[in-house]
């Protein structure tokens, strides 16, 4: 039961998911260590949700090995699920129950006694700031409120491993920061988190380590800092040109930096010294509308690895 092989809480080897002849997850390897926050990044359709669902025992593994808390999802799903908290990408609250009933009933599925369920429900409703809506039906809640209820529901069994598939999509900034704070505290108490997100600030804030998935495979792995060091330069010069046709600028930016990335609305110049690059742009009389020097971030890593901008 306890003591996962190799100390990993979740261990995947050649993990594969196929839907018919389509391969959604193509033989990926990863280890999630106890008490860490592990992130999955990647563009739409990369296979993140498919991977999360296999870990959550919601979707059978097609091929390869997967151990979750040292157990096999194919034969010990119930034991595994008892120790998981799952926030699915799409809310699946019980719309025939009230807000409070959603939490209490969920607790009952975990065989949590009624009195404990009630006090946990109180505490969680407070945490996700839905205490005043406790008696309301779920359907009329706003999207963000439903999300918060889904998150509260996932914590009702005080899970050892929490799987969060885009947990903060649809949340306002305040609710996001509250959730980050709560997740941080959960981790402090020894819980392990697996998170997918399209928000790079969230990944940098929360994740100790992460993998970037693209087209069903893992294309990079490391801590946010390691990834930035490996796949981006120290600084980035962002240039906006307004109406000027950028095609005509191509030649002019040559030799300016290690790498130049063209986005629809701006051009990114990867360099270790942004100010120097900007001076050079001015010296070459390139007509920029605005310029900004900033530190490289995970977003730049993402861009360089997947060739896609995050915000689609």
């Amino acid at each position, binding site marked *: 039961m306890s003591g996962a092989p190799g100390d990993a809480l979740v261990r995947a080897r050649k993990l594969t998911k196929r*839907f018919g002849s389509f391969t959604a997850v193509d033989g990926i390897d990863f280890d999630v260590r106890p008490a860490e926050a592990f992130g999955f990044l990647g563009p739409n359709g990369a296979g993140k949700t498919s991977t999360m669902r296999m870990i*959550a*025992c*919601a*979707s*059978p593994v097609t091929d390869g090995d997967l151990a979750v808390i040292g157990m096999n*999802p*194919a*034969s010990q*799903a*119930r*034991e595994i*699920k*008892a120790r*998981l908290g*799952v926030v*699915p990408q*799409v809310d*699946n*609250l*019980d*719309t*025939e*129950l009230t807000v409070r*009933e959603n939490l209490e*009933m*969920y607790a*009952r*599925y*975990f*065989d949590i006694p009624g009195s404990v369920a009630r006090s946990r429900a109180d505490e969680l409703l407070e945490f996700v700031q839905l205490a005043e809506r406790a008696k309301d039906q779920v359907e009329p809640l706003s999207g963000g409120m439903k999300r918060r209820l889904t998150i509260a*529901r996932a914590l009702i*069994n005080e899970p050892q491993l929490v799987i969060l598939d885009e947990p903060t999509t649809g949340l306002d900034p305040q609710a996001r920061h509250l959730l980050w704070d709560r997740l941080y505290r959960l981790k402090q108490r020894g819980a392990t988190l697996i998170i997918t997100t399209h928000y790079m600030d969230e990944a940098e804030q929360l994740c100790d380590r992460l993998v970037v998935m693209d087209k069903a495979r893992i294309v990079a792995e490391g801590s946010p800092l390691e990834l930035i060091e490996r796949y981006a330069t120290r600084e980035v010069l962002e240039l906006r040109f307004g109406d000027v046709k950028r095609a005509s600028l191509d030649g002019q930016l040559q030799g300016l930096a290690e790498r130049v990335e063209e986005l629809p609305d701006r051009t990114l110049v990867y360099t270790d010294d942004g100010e120097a690059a900007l001076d050079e742009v001015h010296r070459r009389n390139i007509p920029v509308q605005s310029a900004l020097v900033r530190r490289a971030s995970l977003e730049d890593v993402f861009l360089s690895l997947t060739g896609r901008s995050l915000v689609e």
Partner: protein
Amino acid sequence: MASPVAVATQGGLGRAWDVVWRARRLVERNVLVYRHQWIVILSGVAEPIFYLIGIGMGLGGLVRTVGLPDGRSISYTAYVAPALLATAAMNGAVFETIFNVFFKLNFRKTYDGILATPMGISEIAIGEMLWALMRASLYAVSMLVLMTALGLILSPWALLTLPVTLFVAATFSATGLAGTAFLRTVQDFDIPMGLIVMPMFLFSGTFFPISAYPIPIQVFMQATPLFHSISLIRGLTTGLMGLEQVWDFAYLVGFFSLAMVIAMRRMERKLIK
């Protein structure tokens, strides 16, 4: 993921009982939902009573007595009442498993949420059946009470009516569950309701002995579970028990088992991707 069918068939009685025991949570959930909607359930209690009064007493004025194969004559109301009892059990079970399960399965995604807990597909399927069974038994008990009050129970065999009616309800809830997992759209409901449930209700010897119909209809009806349910329950309340009723029971056991296996397979197919 262990197949629910495998769990049910190879896991042994102990494991099967564990599943049933855990499935009570789903009953708990449905009680919570219906706490605010008792009127819906009560209308199901009223329906067979209206039929009994409307048709039993109305037609009973014209027909008066029905001759049984053993030579006895019984009142038309006593003839029709057990059939309405069987039909009430069927309706309670089928409506619950077809309509409510369909929406939870396809639109509400309720089961996806529940499946993230230690509950599995077997627990969900059996939980829904248990609940349908409870609903159907409420209908059955109220009918039985009424029949007793009206003096329509003619034999001590009737003591077995309640358990048999529950078994009939179990058969129909498994059948409904098996059927609902095949339905795709709301419009599809018309198929089981209009083409199966309704004709069964009319032709299964509910209101007349099936000998009133042409042979092909008789043969066809003898293949349906409602026909055998009515024949069995009528046997119990009127005391007309014979080999035929043994066959009715055997048929229902077979039908129930088949429906269970199909229901589990389909639910699994529908929920696991």
